[in-house]
């Protein structure tokens, strides 16, 4: 559960890390340092969470297979 939850949370964080700068570049929302830094942090942590979750998920599946 942790693995899948990590992947899902990671996805939304990475998506935010993409959408926020995209909207700022298109001038839909005004540029600001705080939003820029926050989006960057979200992108990095989302990627990290997603990969951790995926690795944990893979390892669990691998062990399940080896049990059989």
């Amino acid at each position, binding site marked *: *559960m*942790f*693995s899948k939850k990590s*992947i899902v949370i*990671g*996805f939304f964080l*990475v*998506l935010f*890390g*993409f959408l*926020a*700068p*995209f909207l*700022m*570049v*298109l*001038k*839909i929302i005004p*540029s*600001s*340092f705080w939003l*820029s*830094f926050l*989006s*960057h*942090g*979200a*992108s*990095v*942590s*989302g*990627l*990290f*969470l*997603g*990969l*951790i979750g*995926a*690795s*944990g*998920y*893979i*390892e*669990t*599946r*691998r*062990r*399940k297979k080896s*049990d059989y």
Partner: protein
Amino acid sequence: METEAGSDLRLPQETGPFSRVIKYTIFRGLTLLLAVMVGVYLTIFIASRGRIIEGDRGDNLGGWLGHIWRPSGVTGAGSAERYEDIAAEQLALEKAEGVEKVWVFLKYNFDLVYQGMTLDLGEVANFWTYSGGEVNDTVSALIRDTLPRTLLLFGTSNLLLFFVSIWLALRISQRNHSIWDKLVAFLSPLSAIPGWIYGLFLTVIAVRYLDFNSRGMISSWPGEFQIEFVFFFVKRFSLPILALFISKLFQSVYSWRTFFMIYSAEDYIELAQAKGIPNRMLTRRYLMKPTLPAIVTRFSMMMVSIWQEAIVLELFFSVSGIGHLFYRALEQNDMPLIVGLTVVFSYLLVISVFFLDFIYAIVDPRVRLGSEGRLTASRRSIILRLKRQISSWLNPLNRKTRYGVQKVRTTFIQRVKGIFADFWWAVRYAFELSWENLKQLLRYKSAVAGLVIIAILVIVSIYTVVTIPYSQAVSMWRGEGNIWVDNPQKARPAWFNLFLKDDLPETIVLDTADGTAQKLITFDDDGFPQVDLFYDFDYPYRGTPQEIVMEIIPEYETKLPFFSFTWITPDGRELDLGSYSSFAANRFTFSQYNKLQQGIVGEKPQEFLFVDPSAEDGKAVPGKYQLHVRARFFEPEGDVEAKLVILGEVFGLAGTDFRRRDLTLALLWGTPVALSFGFLAAICSSLLSMVIAAFGAWYRGWVDGLVQRLVEINMVLPAFPVALMVYNFYSKRIWVILGVTVLLSIFGGGIKTYRSVFLQVRENLYIESAQSYGTSNLRMIFRYMIPRVISVLIPQVVVLIPGYVFLETTLAYLNMSDPYLPTWGKVLRDSLNSGALSGDTYLLAMPMAWLMLTAFGFLFVALALEKIFNPRLKDV
């Protein structure tokens, strides 16, 4: 609780998970903030040429920095009052004494750092941008407007990386040693190649085969949302995003996979499995926790390295983000903007590290702040230890070891000799170990291929340095003595013809001075000489030459000779190219000499001279040609020497560039430069990192703490931008570049890796026994600890070499390298600047091929070494 050493230890205090995470996060945040302050101070120190410590600045950091670098123009807000402020504050500083002076000095420096950190740097000195109806002429506004473009680039590549990495990891997990598994393992070394090199590959493919070029600045960004801009934007950003994504993909997947494979084979994992612990719990509690620190470190390093590439990637693709802005600011000497951008880079790094630490604290319940979770010494034991230390200082003759054994007194020379003996022993040990492992290397085919490549590169380097000395190479590369004048411009390599149906023409040089052209001197009735020059040559090509050049050096006293030119084709046509009494210069090209144009029909002389006008194919007629030049003199004494150069389309092993320089020289000399730079930087930085980590791990306490803090400062200090500042404003000599590179690399991620190994080595029993019989600290470090890390050091050094080779190439591309040496990066830069992407892509092929060859050679060896030194990776 008593230990054998007699100190009292106390059990940890339990705290809730929420307060644990909050405390840890606040502590890390403050630590990182302090690291940023130190980093900003260092940046301002470099930017101010050290004058920050003199206290002679005005009220405004931006104006002051602008004045230092552009004294003719005072810039920045508040500059009108700046001189008065300088005088008033200098007076205050001079009047202050003792502690007050220190306080005033600290206040000045803190003000500067505060202004730097809040980006209060005034106006941009030399340029501004216009975006969305607003003029961005302050440093803060300009950066604020530009930053989202860079973040969009990286955010999109992260999104892509997220999906593809997870998908790829899932494919790999389905079966061990599947084709995807092997592909990832094989391609993982490609992550050492920087993103802009991938961008170069992608751009060449896109331009040649898809007629698509995403390079080119977007001239103005819209003030309001327009849907068409979205599509235009996707087109412009697709290649840089793809380049960044590819450069990180394989490393991400391979690293994660490798870490889990190493730890999943541990004995305690098997024991836990045997005890029936569920797989999910096993993975989360027993497998992920020990690997998380390494993964966090590795991921942080990857994020740091990504930001190093931002400048070059944006410059290459002309993406107007903060990286491109930084380079423009360097070119314009706009120091306030440079400092502002460096601070922003630093913040981005801090945020990466901070968020990763925050997640790490949430995931791993062992992470605690300060003394929680660890056994701590009681006040009594601390006092006992202090007493022992003070007694040791006061009575040097009575020094005892930790176990109460009397230490042997040695002289300074004896100690120095001992250190060298231990160091030499460690070097010998390393060589013996390397030799043993080299034999094992030969069992891996990829390693053999890598060693062959490295051997070829070393042989080429030695040959080059011996046959073309440094001074000669520099002189040749600069084109001194017009040595390249007879070469064609932007010619392809000669071996190109092997792949063509119709060969491209080669350069033909005929000179009366060396006898390749005939000269016949006769005398007319008046006794004046008449010189006939015959240039006979075989032209077996169907394509026309690039240019025809004539160099005529007549010898006469007062009267100019009279020249006439006749061109004879293989099919017997005689073309009269006219008669002339004088030439504007001794050397002229047929296409540019106006007088010669009078006799030539058509656009290009080479078409007129080589192509049969009656033929429809428009190709040159192969066969024997002749140029007949007749010089009539009007004096008794007269002679002429002349050279005909028919410039071809191919030349040499590597072709020529736009300055007609033989690229073989740059490729040959680029080899020793790249290898020596890469090898020296890798060895020096790795050795120094290892020694510093050893000292920190051995002495612990404040030494280890200081090392950790320096690593953190280095992690948040944007090393590449700072290095570019030093190169641009101080020196571009190769040794300075090497020194700065090593200095900024010492406190990198390598220290953490070495430290973790040293901490384990320190716990071994032989260490304790060596301590018990009075071994000195230095001997412990050099004789007993460092040799145990050789197995980590060697693969690390080999992996780092191609990274530094690419760094040297990147610096050359940014025009931040040694201005005299011909290198691969310089060839790439000159080729790109002369339009290589729009047609002459072969100019990029040779240096790229050499770069990739070097990278693969070292990376293949590094992969095999990792498997030798870490047998658990043999299945990877």
